[in-house]
């Protein structure tokens, strides 16, 4: 009895308090993130958040490609690495400042995406996933051991790269970087969300749902898939380029398989195809990975690999609990509550009307 009372109390709480329009809730989240550094969290945590912001851009770009068009990419690290290396190479060999090299890196990323897109789009589903997986591995080999290694610095990568705010004292640099990444994340997420919900987005979803019917509707499917590839590659390389300047180096680790797989895990965790879901997923990942497992449980160095396993286990449990992703489940729940309330209101109004009619007929 107590349990049912509590449940009812919770649902009424959820209906009243958690029921905020999406724009407002997005704004509240943004405010929370903007005020977060003011709570006096240490530089270590601030660093985690900076990396999370950057990686979120990468993850969201993956969600546009896979969640919206269904073009399974298991090689998104390619664009991340290309972004990292192009800004680093331009900086090292041409001495350009980062505000020139990063935009150029975006263009390189988009071009690479289109180039990769052409052969990749001949295959579908699991085959596409495998083909895309191969490209970052090839590039990884090239920059680490292969023909490109004399230019790219082999295993050690290219370093040092200029940081974003060299003129500020160290303590404020972190803070400035935090706001910079937050703003860039906001711009990227809003842009991708707009694209996903634009007319182009409708066409992209139609391709995901039924490619044949899209073609029969007169849609040039290849063109739209390439557009999705290019936009996704552009934002992924933005993340890679920022990452390089944050760490002040571009190294082969940006092309590793893990980098390709993390977007898959966190997007499914947050809610695929929603753009806001993967954002939540990324922060959950960073909190789990760098806070819970590193600091709260203090996994010793020799058990580092087990850490990843533990993370995956937690994710599996979360996915079983919320198969459509955490963010998507919450949003759906809220919508259900709203619908129920609307129905209730209609019912109440109907009853009121009935009562009025009966009283008036009596009178």
């Amino acid at each position: 009895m107590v349990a049912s009372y509590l449940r009812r109390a919770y649902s009424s709480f959820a209906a009243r308090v958690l029921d905020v329009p999406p724009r407002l809730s997005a704004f509240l989240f943004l405010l929370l993130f903007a005020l977060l550094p003011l709570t006096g969290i240490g530089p270590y945590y601030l660093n985690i958040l900076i990396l999370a912001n950057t990686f979120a851009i990468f993850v969201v770009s993956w969600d546009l490609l896979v969640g919206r068009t269904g073009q399974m990419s298991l090689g998104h690290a390619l664009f991340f690495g290309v972004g990292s290396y192009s800004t680093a190479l331009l900086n090292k060999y041409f001495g350009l400042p980062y505000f020139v090299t990063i935009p150029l890196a975006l263009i390189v990323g988009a071009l690479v995406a289109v180039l990769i897109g052409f052969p990749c789009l001949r295959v579908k589903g699991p085959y596409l996933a495998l083909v895309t997986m191969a490209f970052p591995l090839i590039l990884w080999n090239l920059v680490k051991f292969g023909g490109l290694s004399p230019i790219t610095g082999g295993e050690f990568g290219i370093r040092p790269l200029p940081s974003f705010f060299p003129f500020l004292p160290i303590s404020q640099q972190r803070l400035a970087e935090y706001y910079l990444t937050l703003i860039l994340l906001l711009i990227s997420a809003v842009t991708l969300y707009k694209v996903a919900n634009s007319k182009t987005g409708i066409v992209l979803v139609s391709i995901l749902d039924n490619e044949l019917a899209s073609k029969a509707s007169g849609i040039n499917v290849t063109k739209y898939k390439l557009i999705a590839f290019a936009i996704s590659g552009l934002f992924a390389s933005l993340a890679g380029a920022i990452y390089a300047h944050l760490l002040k180096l571009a190294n082969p680790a940006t092309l590793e398989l893990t980098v390709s797989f993390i977007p898959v895990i966190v997007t499914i965790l947050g809610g695929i195809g929603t753009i806001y879901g993967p954002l939540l997923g990324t922060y959950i990942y960073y909190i789990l990975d760098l806070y819970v497992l590193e600091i709260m449980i203090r996994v010793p160095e020799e058990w580092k690999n087990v850490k990843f396993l533990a993370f995956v286990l937690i994710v599996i449990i979360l996915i079983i609990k919320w198969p459509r992703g955490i963010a998507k489940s919450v949003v759906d729940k809220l919508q259900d509550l709203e619908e129920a309330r609307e129905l209730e209101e209609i019912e109440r109004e109907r009853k009121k009307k009935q009562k009025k009619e009966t009283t008036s007929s009596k009178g």
Partner: protein
Amino acid sequence: MHLLEIENLSKSFGGLTAVKSVGFHVDEGEIVGIIGPNGAGKTTLFNLIIGFLKPDSGTIKFRGENIHGLDPHKIVNKGISRTFQVVRPFRHLPTIANVMVPLLSPRGKKKIEWLKTPERKAMEMLEEVGLSEMMLEPAENLSHGDLKRLEIARALATEPDLLLLDEPFGGLSPIETDYLTKSILRMHLDGHTLVIVEHKLHALMKLVKRVIVLHYGEKIAEGTPEEIAKNPKVVEVYIGKAE
């Protein structure tokens, strides 16, 4: 000049010849029916016309222009549309967005009247087939009959000069069949040229002026519904030979 002219069209899958040197033509404003038992090659014929399959030999001319071998989206943008035998809605999209997809194709964009948004036009298309109430419902929530109508609204959105309907009556109740017959007649009166592949001969024969009969990929007869009903070859194919 015929609107659609097919000559000597052949297509085989491995050892199986699905369409064997078929030739016919469709004139502007006509309703033509294509009938034949299962596996006669009717759907393959449609897939060849719309470009999902490339013919092994033969020509397909649309308004005097060769279209065989072109990509499907190019053919659709030239003015041919089709519906599918098994409905293929965009399940995750709202019903209205389903109709908006063809309106975002080059031909669809061109056919939207001045100062009209695709949304507005999509709404009108849905009204025409009687689906405006389901406008915001995701297509996965629609019933089979509604999906069949959505399929037609989607095919009509690009305002095709030639509409290919692949078994439009399949799986419909008698009432829905009646309703659809009326809307097809209305389309005909609006000046659409239609080619209908159908199993339900009863519904089809009421609609069309000319019937083409396929059997094992070959055209065995062509004529008015009355002629076809009396044609001994057709009767043999459908019912069997009298001993």
